[in-house]
């Protein structure tokens, strides 16, 4: 069964995924809205940057984050000058890395569901005295609910499953920055296959269940034909 450090790793993974998903929904939503409604060169550049984590080896991202967030790096230095600690090898570093790494998994489904909406509905809301912000919350968000569900689950699951970035900037410190995926790796390295099975199998089932949930709810929530 799971030992104490496995449970700690599980808890860190879940906490990391929750916080990352929350941050991404908060900042990814306006970004996705902007991407869905603008044109031009700046949009293309931002879109490419958002998609970078899809193609980059996680170690590349992890390497640069290590440099940036370390005590000698510009961002790490900033943290220190503000009276904090450099985020590398800490939970906060994991969060920063995960947010960047899972960004496309949250932004893309949101962007797609905003782009799919008929501009007519927002115009109708405008002629019904709804301000731009009101239109976003009363029309665009509820109509993008399937996009929000997909984005949350993909963001969460992808963060749970990441390995390279968290290894590079977290440093695999049990109880602090050791996440589930790295714990599995450690078990396998030390030939503790039974332990590895518990974690790996559990993760497999959990991921499958989450995706199954998303797809079945989405089929249910099919965006209205006229939406």
């Amino acid at each position, binding site marked *: 069964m799971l030992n104490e450090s496995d449970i700690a790793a599980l808890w860190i993974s879940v906490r990391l995924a929750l916080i990352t998903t929350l941050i991404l929904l908060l900042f990814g939503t306006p970004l996705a809205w902007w991407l869905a409604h603008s044109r031009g060169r700046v949009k293309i550049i931002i879109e490419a940057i958002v998609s970078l984590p899809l193609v980059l080896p996680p170690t590349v991202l992890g390497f640069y984050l290590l440099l940036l967030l370390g005590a000698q790096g510009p961002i790490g230095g900033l943290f220190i000058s503000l009276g904090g600690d450099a985020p590398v090898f800490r939970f906060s570093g994991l969060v920063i890395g995960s947010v960047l790494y899972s960004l496309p998994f949250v932004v893309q489904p949101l962007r797609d569901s905003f782009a799919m909406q008929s501009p007519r509905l927002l*115009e109708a809301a405008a002629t*019904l005295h709804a301000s731009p912000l009101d239109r976003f919350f009363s029309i665009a968000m509820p109509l993008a609910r399937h996009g929000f569900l997909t984005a949350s689950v993909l963001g969460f699951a992808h963060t749970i499953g990441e390995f390279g970035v968290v290894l590079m900037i977290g440093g695999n410190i049990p109880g602090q920055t050791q996440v589930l995926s790295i714990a599995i790796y450690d078990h396998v390295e030390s030939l503790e296959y039974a332990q590895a099975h518990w974690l790996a199998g559990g993760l497999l089932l959990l991921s499958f269940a989450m995706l199954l949930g998303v797809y079945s709810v989405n089929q249910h929530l099919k965006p209205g034909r006229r939406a």
Partner: protein
Amino acid sequence: MSLQLRYRLQRGDFALDVDFKLPASGISALFGPSGCGKTTCLRCIAGLEKPQQGLFKLGEQCWQDSARSHFIPAHQRAVGYVFQDAALFPHLNVEANLRYGYKRLRNKSAQIKPGMIIELLGLSALLMRSVENLSGGERQRVAIGRALLANPDLLLMDEPLSALDASSKADIMPCLEQLHRELSIPVLYVSHAADEVARLADHIVLLERGKLQAQGSTHEIFTRLDLALAQEPDASAIIEARVESHEDEFALTRLVFNGQHISLPTLALDEGHSVRIIIHARDVSLALEHNRNSSILNILSAEVIAISELNAAQILVQLETGGQKLLSRITRKSASALKITPGQRLYAQVKSVSLL
């Protein structure tokens, strides 16, 4: 009160360049072929488009004046907009759709309240329904109700009937007429269907290729010989009349307008009720004398105002009778035999009349 607008806007090949003033009462139709700029004009008025140069005034309110960079955004304009495809919010039920604009009114002493609109448009049975499974006519009724509940000072309707089948149209027309009678909100109605305009509009603005071609009262525009409407095979005149009496023996209703009488099969309307009738140019023949030995019931004394040649065989005669205009399409041969000339007094024999 009047409505004044001036818009200049360039969109690729299309240019809108209009400048006109309308009475801000009753139903005014923006009429013209597809692509003439009717909808763009309406979108500018609602604030959904921002024309490079624009001026819009409704009575004392100024919604745009580009000369002093004044532009009130759509959500702050007291406007109601009915889209061609209804544009109902799919995640809200009928009642929530209806109340969307009403809820957002700042002035809580709104004149138009949900109860009266629900009754007026016959929506009470639909309130809890999802908008996804409404019929086309029902959707459009909800859209009209939703726009009215925003308590607009001006109601804009963009071809609200064009996506509907004939029976849904027949369903909605009376609603629109009733709204017209019971609410004093001026309406701008975009359409390319002459029959809708003939029935509903008091005033017509004729647009073509982004430019104003003519404007005037509905009867005037329909019967102007220099405009396209009179050249159509269905060219017709619209006459406002009032029910004078019923002739039960023959199942007829007698209408009167300015001393002229017209009979038609019994209408279920009270005496004094005003009606709008349509008389097609092809159904009007001309005679120099009042022929009492004819089966034609409706013979109006008229004066020839103008004549225009339609083709080698036919001419169109514009007449005035009882202060209203009438069109008659006759052969050139008959015209020459009767020596039809402007100013001539004669008799218009009307073969058929229908109620709008």
